[in-house]
């Protein structure tokens, strides 16, 4: 049970959150301008590193806000939460 720091509510149990996958995957500004391969990558292809990984979480059983964290996928250590208002999916 991770202890996750919601930028709005503070530290809460992982059970209050939902995971949103990799952060900063930009939706192409004009989807019609990208080819099928690029669009397919936007939809389905994600990084899966061992180590630091920017990812999205939503405090679904709390303030319902989305935010980004950097998590080390080997140790689960989380850091540098940024409210994802400026972030991307």
């Amino acid at each position: 049970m991770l202890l996750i720091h919601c930028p709005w509510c503070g530290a809460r149990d992982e059970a209050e959150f939902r995971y949103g996958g990799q952060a900063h995957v930009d939706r192409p500004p004009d989807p019609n301008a990208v080819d099928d391969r690029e669009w397919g990558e936007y939809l389905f292809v994600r990084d899966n590193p061992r180590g630091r990984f920017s990812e999205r979480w939503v405090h679904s059983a709390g303030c319902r806000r989305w935010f980004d964290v950097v998590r080390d996928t080997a140790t689960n250590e989380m850091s540098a939460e940024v409210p994802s208002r400026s972030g991307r999916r």
Partner: protein
Amino acid sequence: MSNEFRLADGGRIDRDRPVRFDFEGQQLQGYAGDTLASALLANGVHRVATSNKYGRPRGIMAAGAEEPNALVQVEAPFPEPMLPATTVEVRDGLQASGLPGKGRLATEEDPARYDTMHTHCDVLVVGAGPAGLAAALSAARSGARVIVADADTEFGGSLLGSGQTLDGRAATDWVRRTTAELAEHPEVRLLPRTTVFGYYEDNYLVALEHRGDDASSRQRIWRMRAREVVLATGAHERPLVFSGNDRPGIMLAGSARTYVNRYAVLPGRRAVVFTTNDSAYAAAIDLHDAGVEIVAVVDAREVVSTYWASLCVERGIRIHASTGVVSTSGTDRITSAHLSSLGPEGNHPTSVRQVVTCDLLLVSGGWNPAVHLHSQARGSVRFAEDIGAFVPDGTDQAARSAGAVTGVLATGKCLTSGAEAGRDAARAAGFDAELARVPDSKHAPILAARHLWVVPGSGDSDGTTQFVDLARDATVADVRRAVAAGMDNVEHVKRYTTIGTAHDQGKTSGTLSTGVIAEVLGVGVGELGTTTFRAPYTPVTFAALAGRERGDLYDPVRVTAMHDWHVEQGALFENVGQWKRPWYYPHSGEDMETAVLRECYAVRSGVGMQDVSTLGKIDVQGPDAAEFLDLVYTNKMSTLKVGRIRYGLMCTADGMVFDDGTVTRTAEHRYLISTTSGGAANVLAHLEDWLQTEWTHLRVHLTSVTEHWATIALVGPESRQVLADVAPELDVDNDGFGFMTWQEGNVAGVHARVCRISFSGELAFEINVPWWYGREVWEVLMAGGRPYGITPYGTETMHVLRAEKGFPIVGQDTDGTITPHDLGMSWAVSKKKDDFLGKRSFSRPDTARTDRKHLVGLLPEDTNLVLPEGAQIVEQPELGEPPVPMLGHVTSSYRSAVLGSGFALAVVKGGRDRVGETLYSPVGDRPVPVTVTEPVFYDKEGARRDG
């Protein structure tokens, strides 16, 4: 046979409270404070169980949770399988029997209550032996919030069974005083009978508390988040591997000492002690002094401790150095130990030199620190040569180990390391902690141990009776077989041999098996390492984990404002997400099919009413609401006029149907959207996600209003008349109140929003009133409809009616691989919008295929047949050899009152191009013919919609 092995005095049992229990039909007596194991030993019972693979007799080997052998099935007070007799407290009425290899689950429902506690603390101390108690004292005196958890019925750990002194007085005095002081601290919580079994990320630890069968809850799970953790989990004694090392009467030396000192029980009359280290000598002395004849101390070392030797000489106990027990005799109990000299290398089998008659054989191969929780916390371990076992070697969690778990075995060192750990933990948690003074203890010099993994036996060169893991009946022969098969890693050998995978998770066999594997492989124990320890440390029942979350409390139950009315009418209910929805309303004597046919007929021919309050409702507000809805729906919502309603389809970015519902424009910058009953929360989350993270510039607010509005669907050709009677102010004419429009007005005296929406193809009104008035308005409508034969109907009828019209249900007729085009709903996909979720994906090659699975109708040739939902669709009447190509499957299937036959919806490859074809569906043992049709079965021209 009544407690003939019980000493006349001493021990920590309560002699004023005798208890009677039943073991395998024998009425036996014990005392409060006994475990089942100690009470059995007091009665001379050693053989408890039968091993699960070879059916060998097995006895009591240990005195705690590490017991590999003595498993019992408890029959009363409540049936529980597979409990170690060493952890079951005896009580009046306890009924148990030895496990014949396997346990048996209870067949009746567990009447006990289980509970869950959630808590936080500054310092969590796991284990209340000398180190844990000293740690708790240092931490508690600083004012930190401290929790002390220990599996045993009372605090003290090894001090309870060692008979030693602290500050010149009985160690148990210090335990009592320390526990009393801890209990005085307002911020300290003491949890005896509580096993911490899981250590998860960020110092989240989970424990199981046994509160007793008479407590308000029998067991309690503790979920604890600690700033700092002190692991004072102690050590388990390691047995030795020799031929016939599994017979009843063979016991760990330290455990035998516990039976004598703590329970005042003699585990035998005539004992041999076989050891590789000093610790077993204390057991030999204590047993001797209690009246056990110690016929021999067999020490594998060439040189033995002069300190212990002199104590033995004083008592006339003979020591055999450079000697080992190589085999044993006996069936239900050991009758003799066979001694042989061991060379310095120990690997050369020599013939038996001496046979010693005994009824008890104490063994000690050293001590294994209980690093389980440390390892669960992703701590690493290293091999400590001095004790021949693995000790903690750092963790990234805010945790520290203290006492025997770190490999220090002398009580004085355990006390000091505990006090330091407690102080350091409290300081790390922000408290001004000092080192608590620890009592003085007598310190015997420790002579180096000999690490002996397999005692070479002359009579068993295969190692088939040299048991490494008694709980799994795994032997040296099994390890050799695994290594011969190419396993050269402990994890692989563990899986190949199942060593360490039983109820005890190899507490006694873990390090031993690594030693044996290393010896077979010819490598160092340290370089081989251990297996990874995983939760739970000891078995935990599902009942405890479930706690109160069972039955009605398993999941929140959501009911509508009209729920009680449905109950009063005898409705049966269907679970839709967390909602209870009326499924159908059977009249007396009706089965489901009859009731549903009646309800369907009533709606199509007269008027029916359904509670549709559970449909999700989201209030969408803001100057950019229209732009936002254009992006998330496939159809255009910005062009919808205030006062009108449009059906809407939502896709995910990959173009697959996600949810559907209606969009009602209530004002220039305000919409009310509806969702499926089960999808409401997901839709809100999906919309918030896009709003918050992608289209952050849009000024839109989303609010769930599902439970603000009670919603009643009034459906059927007579519905207009019923509504007109009940809401005379409302203009219900088709001209004044057109399809897909809404009006506000009084319905039954309550301000309502009425929508003309139909999910059945019939003339229909959807009446929304504030939740509070739901039942009242519902009852007025029922009364008003009585002259028209109004019929309440449930979800099953709703499903049939919508299927007759070919309306798909998202999540039933779709499964996340279905596009709007697959559903034949291209009409709901805007061609004018530049962008919306899903649009770009529609032109991906796979999504644009023309032979995708399409939603079609199916009519079985046998009109009486209702196809099972999920049935496969195939091309040919003969299935042939597998794999049989599948064309699709049935998604919805019912019997229709208006069609007079069974009918189905299905997704079928290229289905729209197959209309009129005959396909087959394997039902039972043969494929039955079905005709592919358009998905709309009834009123194709839509004539009934306006009444």
